[in-house]
């Protein structure tokens, strides 16, 4: 640790990196996962199963586009169904990557270094999955470009007073900036792969992608400057994205949506679900690929603590929503909360409280911080709980608003579930492709870590 920071850092005592590693051994270990000629059998199994779901996704999208959005369960009064629930859920998952790579970089948290690369990749894939939903929800996705301002012959323009247009800009900016940040981080590692690859084809492909990177001191100097600036830009961006997503709800006047607590509460929820997804992926991966030396128990413990902290903010959000429903004295707000807790969808609310608030409280026990199976179980609970939270916010608020004559019930159709399962498959398939062809841990940052650890021990 930095000698200037005498206070205890999270996870003190557990190593960030198992001892005995050198620049060479780290390079060889991480690049061999990509450059090996033999793809492990579990890769084929995982990718194969995920690819079946990709086909389900393609089938469902084709059906919805060619027949129409009537295949989804949406109707009046619940005009926003699974598509919006899933969109918000996936965007939230996408928040951990940028948080780990940008905010933890600015806070000089060295434990981010072995998890940032695949967390960033996870962000990209999660945002890609999220982007599918509003597109197919449009009904006529081939007109999606109408959302952008351009001098069209129709003489009309998008409405910049609407949060839905803000959303288009927020999500597309977020995807672009995450992609640039991720690729900039990859360039030195692509050069490593170029130099280590033995086949002509991989050497050519990695060589083209590395763009002639040669590790020059002047290049590194500019690179570090740009990397830090991108981190500084991505930090407010990541906070803004879910804030804008929450405006989609908060700017509307539906009880259960129209609330000023939404932006911070959505951002905390996004980080919460994002860390849960990173843990869900990291725990099996480090075992499958034997990366316990790099992704140590300390990383898992720290992510568990971040989950606990953000979970408490989310709990505060739930508490305040309930309190304000009572304190406002507004009969519609009060009814909304009673309906949320004890109405026809009440069971969902209680499962979400159990999964998001009660079960993660077990993370207070120190002995459970290093229990992988426990962390995995909690992370999966949080993933499900956060999906239910969005369902409760979107569907349960809409299904009974002001006039009882306009009430109705909603349930997803087989196509709703098909697209959800399909995007999960797409996410896993992209993740496994990424692991197979690109280094899932940042090699050059691990070399820096070795260098720093050496400097302390000597």
């Amino acid at each position, binding site marked *: 640790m930095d000698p200037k920071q005498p206070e205890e850092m999270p996870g003190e005592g557990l190593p960030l990196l198992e001892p005995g590693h050198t620049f060479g051994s780290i390079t060889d270990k991480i690049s061999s996962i990509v450059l090996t000629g033999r793809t492990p059998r579990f890769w084929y199994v995982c990718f194969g199963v995920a690819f079946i779901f990709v086909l389900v996704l393609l089938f469902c999208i084709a059906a919805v586009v060619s027949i129409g959005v009537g295949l989804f369960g949406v109707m009046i009064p619940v005009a926003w169904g699974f598509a919006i629930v899933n969109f918000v859920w996936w965007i939230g998952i996408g928040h951990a990557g940028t948080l780990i790579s940008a905010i933890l970089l600015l806070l000089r948290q060295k434990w981010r270094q072995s998890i940032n690369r695949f967390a960033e990749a996870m962000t990209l894939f999660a945002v890609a999955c999220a982007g599918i939903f509003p597109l197919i929800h449009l009904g006529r996705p081939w007109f999606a470009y109408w959302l952008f301002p351009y001098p069209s012959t129709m003489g009309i323009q998008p409405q*910049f007073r609407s949060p839905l247009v803000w959303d288009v*800009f927020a999500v597309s900016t977020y995807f672009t900036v995450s992609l640039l940040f991720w690729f900039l981080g990859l360039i030195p590692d692509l050069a490593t792969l170029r130099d280590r690859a033995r086949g002509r084809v991989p050497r050519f492909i990695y060589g083209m992608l590395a763009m002639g990177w040669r590790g020059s*001191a002047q290049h590194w100097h*500019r690179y570090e400057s740009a990397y830090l600036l991108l981190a500084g*830009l991505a930090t407010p961006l990541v906070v803004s994205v879910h804030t804008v997503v929450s405006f989609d709800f908060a700017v509307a006047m539906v009880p259960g949506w129209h609330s000023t607590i939404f932006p911070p509460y959505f951002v905390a929820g996004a980080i919460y679900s994002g860390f849960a997804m990173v843990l869900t992926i990291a725990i099996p991966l480090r075992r499958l690929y034997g990366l316990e030396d790099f992704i140590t128990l300390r990383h898992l413990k720290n992510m568990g603590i971040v989950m606990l902290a953000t979970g408490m903010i989310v709990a505060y959000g739930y508490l305040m929503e309930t309190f304000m429903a009572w304190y406002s004295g507004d009969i519609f707000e009060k009814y909304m909360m009673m309906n949320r807790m004890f109405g026809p969808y009440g069971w969902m609310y209680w499962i979400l409280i159990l999964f998001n608030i009660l079960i993660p409280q077990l993370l207070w026990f120190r002995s459970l911080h290093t229990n992988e199976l426990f962390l995995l179980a909690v992370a999966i609970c949080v993933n499900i709980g956060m999906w239910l939270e969005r369902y409760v916010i979107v569907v349960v608020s809409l299904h009974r608003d002001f006039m009882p004559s306009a009430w109705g019930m909603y349930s997803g159709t087989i196509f709703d579930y098909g697209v959800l399962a399909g995007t999960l498959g797409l996410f896993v398939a992209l993740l496994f492709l990424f692991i197979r062809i690109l280094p899932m841990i940042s090699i050059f940052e691990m070399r820096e870590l070795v260098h720093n650890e050496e400097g302390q021990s000597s």
Partner: protein
Amino acid sequence: MAESTVIKNQLPLYGLMAEFDSPEHLVDGARRAFDAGYRRMDAYSPFPVEGLAEAIGFHHTRVPLIVLIGGILGCVGGFFLQYWVAVIDYPINIGGRPLNSWPSFIPVTFELTILLAALFAFFGVLALNGLPMPYHPVFNVERFELASRNRFFLCIEAADARFDLDATRRFLEETGSLGTYAVEP
């Protein structure tokens, strides 16, 4: 343990390259080369080494300025894009709100500021570094492929005013390098 490569032909060289086994030795070697009066040189390392760019006399980078320009362009351009759309090109009365309802334009202005600044940062650093550059003479040194693994290199270019094949070679050997190599152009 200096193992010099015999220079086979007398074609003008790109420069001479020394290999080091640790970042500290590289910084030390680079500093000594700078003190000896060499200016046209570059150091190569598998990860960013603190103080290395300064050791070869490279202090300032224009990256922050480029990012600032990108951010300002995104901010001003983003706001006036919305102003032009909402006030000039497609004025439409929404609930009696003013056409230039600027508070609603802030989120998109903010996003475009970040977007342009990030694009300028990414393409700016590539442009300043002269990348993509598929060919560079340093790749002619066989050992140089270790520059992306665990070795550190210092290359003094023949274009330097003080470059002298024998003197520079002797100088590099005395810096405690593992080996000195001629870099073919």
